[in-house]
């Protein structure tokens, strides 16, 4: 084993593919031992016609699935000595990750699907035809055995789970806990929606991702995870943000929707869309060691029955701001998956309750929810007015008040670049104080300024505003 550097070309002969950066080759050779027996040689036999047809299909499937530039498989037949190559698979893709994935996928599938038999000739003089591996069908046969044994599920319940389709929106902490449970349980179709990419700060709690996934799309990586866990599940990756433009189409495509997002706007949009289309929504949110979960059924009270006025995302913080630990989203994600399973097998769901749990004190509170007469959410309308105390841009506030002052309330040690013309007076200095002129308050995300403005207005001060999204929102809009 040696690592070397050379300034001369490395000689490996291959077809030129200028768009391909990653080439992976698998070379399966005859080993001198198998299951503790000493092996002298191997003999391979094929049902040629079928093997060729199935093999060709396999290669084309791999090319489409992994977006390959090229893929080639050669399998050897007849008598082979120890050290000879039995099968060689070469794969070319733009990036290495797909090349590795495709090459391993092809050899796994080939062993299952392509009718080639192997005879082992042992040093003892004996020989034996060997089955390479259980077929995927056989593996799936036992897969749900333990589930079917539950009296609440049985073969009928398993059939319902297998026939179901679930839209999972948000593949962060909650989604990463929902996904293994539902893919494992054998939900027939999973549609995974998230426009984000994996960040290093996600990994501690979003344990379906690996470090090598950092920078890659969550939807695609989560789909890969689910397929590897349970190849019999049909998985689709949608690398989009759920919004008013695509909500109807996505929600319509599935029976049950799981909300794993950290956006209040998305939660209320999902709520209205599910109500309109008659779908069941399982929603959850976490904060510190606490969280809440409940299910909105087509006939039950909805999220907007609870909060008639849609809160803006700036009014409370998300995990990125407050922090969280792996067990919290895992706990609430599992509770969401349980709601899906219970819903599918006809078990009880939290349809007119809200469940609160605190993982520090291990205390649970269930609060009864009810239909609010005239609820617009129940009618399928998404209520999303910006409240009067919030503005989307500095200009919007200036239009209302010519004498507007802009005050940046971040601490002095935070990033120095407030908007042009703003004065920095940190949050703490506003306790009990009232601005003399109309004022737009600005902070990093809009959370602190919103809090300050709401507090002032509750004391009768008008003409104070908060910039929605804060400085970060301004940067993102530019």
């Amino acid at each position, binding site marked *: 084993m040696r690592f070397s550097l050379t300034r001369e070309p490395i000689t490996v002969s291959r077809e030129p593919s200028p768009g391909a950066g990653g080439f992976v080759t698998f070379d399966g050779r005859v080993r001198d031992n198998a299951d503790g027996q000493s092996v002298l040689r191997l003999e391979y036999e094929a049902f040629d016609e079928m093997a060729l047809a199935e093999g060709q299909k396999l290669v084309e499937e791999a090319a489409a699935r992994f977006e390959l530039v090229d893929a080639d498989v050669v399998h050897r037949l007849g008598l082979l000595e120890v050290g000879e190559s039995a099968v060689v698979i070469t794969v070319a893709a733009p990036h290495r990750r797909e090349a590795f994935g495709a090459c391993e996928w092809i050899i796994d599938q080939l062993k299952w699907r392509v009718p080639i038999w192997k005879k082992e000739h042992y040093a003892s003089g004996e020989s034996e035809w060997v089955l390479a591996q259980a077929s995927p069908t056989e593996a799936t046969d036992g897969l749900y055995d333990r589930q079917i044994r539950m009296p609440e599920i049985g073969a009928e319940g398993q059939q319902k789970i297998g026939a179901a389709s679930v839209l999972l929106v*948000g593949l962060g902490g909650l989604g990463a806990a929902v996904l293994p449970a539902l893919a494992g349980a054998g939900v027939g179709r999973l549609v995974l929606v998230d426009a984000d990419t994996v960040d290093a700060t996600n990994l501690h709690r979003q344990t379906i991702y690996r470090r090598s996934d950092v920078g890659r799309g969550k939807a695609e990586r989560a789909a890969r995870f689910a397929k590897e866990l349970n190849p019999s599940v049909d998985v689709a990756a949608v690398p989009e943000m759920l919004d008013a433009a695509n909500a109807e189409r996505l929600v319509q495509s599935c029976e049950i929707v799981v909300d794993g997002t950290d956006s209040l706007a998305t939660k209320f949009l999902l709520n209205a869309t599910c109500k309109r289309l008659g779908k069941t929504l399982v929603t959850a949110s976490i904060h510190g060691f*606490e969280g809440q979960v409940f299910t909105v059924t087509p006939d039950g009270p909805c999220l907007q029955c609870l909060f008639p006025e849609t*809160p803006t995302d700036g009014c*409370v913080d*998300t995990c990125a701001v407050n922090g969280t630990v792996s067990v919290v*989203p895992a706990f609430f994600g599992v509770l969401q998956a349980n709601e899906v399973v219970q819903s599918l097998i006809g078990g009880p769901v939290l349809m007119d309750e*809200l469940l609160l749990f605190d993982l520090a004190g291990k205390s649970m*509170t269930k609060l009864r929810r009810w239909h609010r007469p005239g609820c617009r959410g129940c009618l399928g309308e998404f209520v999303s007015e910006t409240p009067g105390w919030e503005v989307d841009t500095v200009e919007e506030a200036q239009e209302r008040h010519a004498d507007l002052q802009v005050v940046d309330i971040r601490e002095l040690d935070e990033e120095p670049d407030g908007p042009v013309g703003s004065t920095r007076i940190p949050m703490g200095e506003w306790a009990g104080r009232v601005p003399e002129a109309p004022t737009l308050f600005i902070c990093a995300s809009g959370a602190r300024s919103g809090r300050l403005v709401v507090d002032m207005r509750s004391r009768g001060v008008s003409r104070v505003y908060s910039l929605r999204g804060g400085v970060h929102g301004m940067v993102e809009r530019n």
Partner: protein
Amino acid sequence: MTLKVKYFAVLRERRGLAEETVEVEPTTAGGFTAWILREHSLGLPPALVRLAMDGTFLADDEPLRDGAEVVLIPPVAGG
């Protein structure tokens, strides 16, 4: 009347306690919510905070019972 108030999530953090007992004039769910948010500068408008008594959410105009335990639930966004 006396109320035992339990705070959740961001309200608990901003208030700095999980629960407390308060003395107030007889009032409704909406009236009490507006008062306590203002009293402690909790930074959320009353329309965004729900109040539950005896394990059930109340409408804003429902009266509170002397000696009851009330729970205040803010919107929660983390995921």
